[in-house]
């Protein structure tokens, strides 16, 4: 699902930078993601996956946050061009 580089956070390859375009509003989980700083317009970078593939580690607003792919799916991002 790639129109002009839009995808969800869980699908970014390790090392990829992107910008959040939307956080799907599904109840308290989305709220929590937003409170932790994942909001439209913010820059994120997928640092790595855990050894077993899940959870993922992202950099956002200057700190490292790890979350499961299931929740990362709620965040839509647009890849940064190089």
């Amino acid at each position, binding site marked *: 699902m790639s129109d002009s580089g839009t995808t969800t956070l869980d699908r970014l390859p390790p090392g990829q930078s992107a910008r959040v375009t939307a956080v799907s509003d599904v109840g308290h989980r989305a709220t929590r993601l*937003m409170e932790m700083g994942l909001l439209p317009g913010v820059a994120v970078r997928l640092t790595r996956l855990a050894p077993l593939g899940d959870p993922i580690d992202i950099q956002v607003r200057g700190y490292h946050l790890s979350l499961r792919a299931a929740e990362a799916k709620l965040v839509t991002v647009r890849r940064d061009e190089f």
Partner: protein
Amino acid sequence: MSSKNPAQPPPLSTRREGPGLGVHEIGPSTAEHTPAVRRIALVGNPNSGKTTLFNQLTGLRQKVGNYPGVTVERHEGSMVGCAGVRVIDLPGCYSLDPRSLDERVARDVLMGWHVKESAPDAVIVVVDASNLERNLFLATQVLELNLPTLIACNMIDVVEGRAESMDVAGLAAELGVPVVATAASTGRGIEALRTAVRRLRTESGAATPGSYPRSRGWAASGRFDEAVREIGAVLDEGEAFDPRVREAVARLLVSGPGTGDAEGGGVPMPARLRARIQQVRDVRGLGRDWNAVAEATEARYRWLGELVARVTSRSAAARASWSDRIDHWACHRVWGLVIFSGLMAVMFLSVFSWAEPAMAGIEALVRQLGAGARAVLGQGALADLLVDGVIAGVGNVVVFFPQICILFLFIALLEDSGYMARAAFVMDRVMAGAGLAGKSFIPLLSSFACAVPAIMATRTIESRRDRLTTILVAPLMSCSARLPVYLVLISALFGPSIWVRSLILFSMYGLGLATALGVAMVLKRTLLKGPTPMFLLELPPYRRPQVWGTLWQMWQRSKVFLVQAGSIILALSVVLWALAYFPRGLGRHGGDPGAQLRQSYLGRIGQVLEPAIAPLGFDWKIGIGLAASFAAREVFVSTMGVVYGVGDDVDEESLSLREKLIAARWPDGRKVFTPLVGISLMVFYVLACQCMSTLAVVRRETNSWRWPAFMFAYMTGLAYVGSLVVYQGGRALGWG
């Protein structure tokens, strides 16, 4: 700080009741007359250095306890250098809209809703300067509570180390409150913070709805403010909540979970009011087509982004810090797991073997004490009670101390350094599959040594359900106390081959592990069913652990164990001793301890149990052993020694005990201890809950008798069924 109407006190409805409060105005003439702050709360994100700051402010004058009714730790201390000021370290939180029990406690205390803990007079928000935006998010919420507030801009040394700068005065001007730059790990800024606390005076809250608190630089939409005003008016009318926090509550009711019940983290309020508020929310479409939560959050962060840009200079490019470089290995696909296994092996060894000398020392000390007491008291029932009951009972408690201390120290080092988050990150997938949390790994691993400290270690698990599951299955991991039982049976009944013996021993451990995972999965699907809590974990930069403060808190927690769990263990020890001691000498005099045991209450219990345990292949003498194991599983061996007349200071190496076991016969001449019975008995020990110390600790950690009772019931049931299946199944297959 500005004051509201200096000439007149505010109207009665906005005045707060309580000691040490009053109207103030800044000025040297009135400063001495104004009451100072008595209780100040520390609030902040996890990993912001709040605990280190707390340690610096209070020195060793701290007390650790629990918030009543919940297993959330409560830290309080008195501030050094500020006479009469008490500091409360509230649980770390990311937002005042709570997602966990810890956050709910923090919010409740700050709002003044907590049943036993009144609102503080002032608050210090600890902010991580190297991570400002997210930390200030909480600060904006706290500022709206209208408490006298200070901001401790902590970890300023990290910022400087990155060659970035922070305009502290600018930040203070933007937020409208004093900001003190601190580096708690080195003590920098602490004195300035103390001075700022001394200068704080309590203010009467400005609480008319619609007035903007000093801090509010963020602006949401017009309709947001309207909604807050409308709900604020409803709250005013109903005189609900302290006027100080009324506007903050109104805002919460617009942008938070709304009128959800208090259990779920909603705002506690009477039903009538709840209905009215819900009406307002429905009319405005809140929680339906208007996502006010998102709007408020975005507005806050928008303002914070601009504010942070104004007060800091930061290099835009992301630089790989040394912390990132360590993580390249620590979270590596292969090396990450290797490093993790290595660290776990070291931890396990340290608890398992390094505690040994200390434990042996304690046991020797207890024996000396007992001998000394006996020398003074001579013979007789009182002497026996004191020596074999009380002193031995206390010994049973204190002997856990080394293991608890070592495990807690290790865990504290892992947490403080920041590695614990990586461990949870690496293990999450595996543990979640079994219905456990990533952080369950350490308690479960240490349960192979002893479940008592392991269960205490589950405090690091945030989710209540995950924590409870871990606690309930931890005793299934075969602890070191079961080892003597396994060894004595294996060496007596399974021949000399080391391969056979090792295989059987390993299988017992494997059975425990498999059962633990299975039970965890079942529990998560049935009794402890519920939505999976979100896994959101910050990976803080690696830091040097603050050993001094950690040691102090470890000591405090161990003390709590000694007093609370210890008293239960002591009581049960005495009871067990009494059951084996009475009734005395019917028909015989002190000669044969075996005979004494057989006709004691404990012996009678064994005989009463026999019909129930015969289908498992056990006779009444084994029954006595099972009952005595309630004190500690390894007691089985010495009890068998007594019952079979070999003496009570045998251990699993004893040849004479082995011979007696092999020679034991049922009345009809069959051997009691066949290999099948051996397996059946070992399976029973794998699965049964026989350790009163474990139950005492579970009681302490879950704050109720319900869970220890449940644990006892389900494990005993499992053990019975397991042994039954093994024994009867084996008989059916002709292995009798």
